């Protein structure tokens, strides 16, 4: 994994989009603690949920 963050691979298109070798980031508020990655996944799920409700669906072979 160190290659992805500090080696030559990180500077090529094959390197990870985000630096995976650095310190993990957490959101900490009183008893609540969660990694930023998990928070981003939850945010993405909410975005997908809203999009699934709002985006039109191609109608085909549906009965009234």
């Amino acid at each position, binding site marked *: 994994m160190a290659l992805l963050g500090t080696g030559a691979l990180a500077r090529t298109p094959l390197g990870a989009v985000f630096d995976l070798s650095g310190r993990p980031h957490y959101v900490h508020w009183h008893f609540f603690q969660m990694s930023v990655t998990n928070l981003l996944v939850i945010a993405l*799920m909410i975005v*997908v*949920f809203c999009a*699934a409700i709002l985006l039109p*669906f191609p*109608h085909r*072979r*549906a*009965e009234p």
Partner: protein
Amino acid sequence: MSVGEAPRERSWTASLRTRAEDALPPETLLPDRQPAYVASWIYVFGALTIAALVCIVASGMVLGLKGPAWWHVTGIGRFFNGIHLWSVEIFFFTMVVHLWGKFWMGAWRGGRSLTWVAGAVTFLISIAAAFTGYLSQQNFDAQWISTQAKDGLNSVGIGAFFNVTNFGQMYTFHVILLPVAVVLLTAWHVLLVRRNGVVPPYVRQLQRERAASEERA
């Protein structure tokens, strides 16, 4: 009475077949049309979850047959390991969106409570299956997770029969017991959806109730 002439109602196979046909006739089991309100992206996530489950089971079978040395060291092994991991990520992602959708549309209405409960139990068992999967990786990550988890599980008395530091037990849970439970519960969940139909939106239910009350009046 000679053999082969038993009354139909006394034969358990005939009785089972009759009950299955009554509960799920072919046109209900495999419908080719759905109500108009099903034409929404929110109804797609259950099928996506099942597609991810198929990928999980298929890639898991390859991993199980080839073994940890293969999935840790070889390029193709790592590829299948990645397929297995990302299928699980997509499985939970789509399942949670499916769960939210069904929660907000009150999918337990109209005698569908068993469908809701079957889905909820499948979700919980899936978490256990994923957890035992992390314990079955055969690397330092798995060791770290097991030694952290054992204290929590021991504190509530589960550790006596669910020992997370016992690799054989966790592996058996992960590749046999929990996947079989998830697949069977998923199949039951889908059959219940087929039998009871997709829950109508609240608006549609209100319209029906209003029309029924107007008819009575």
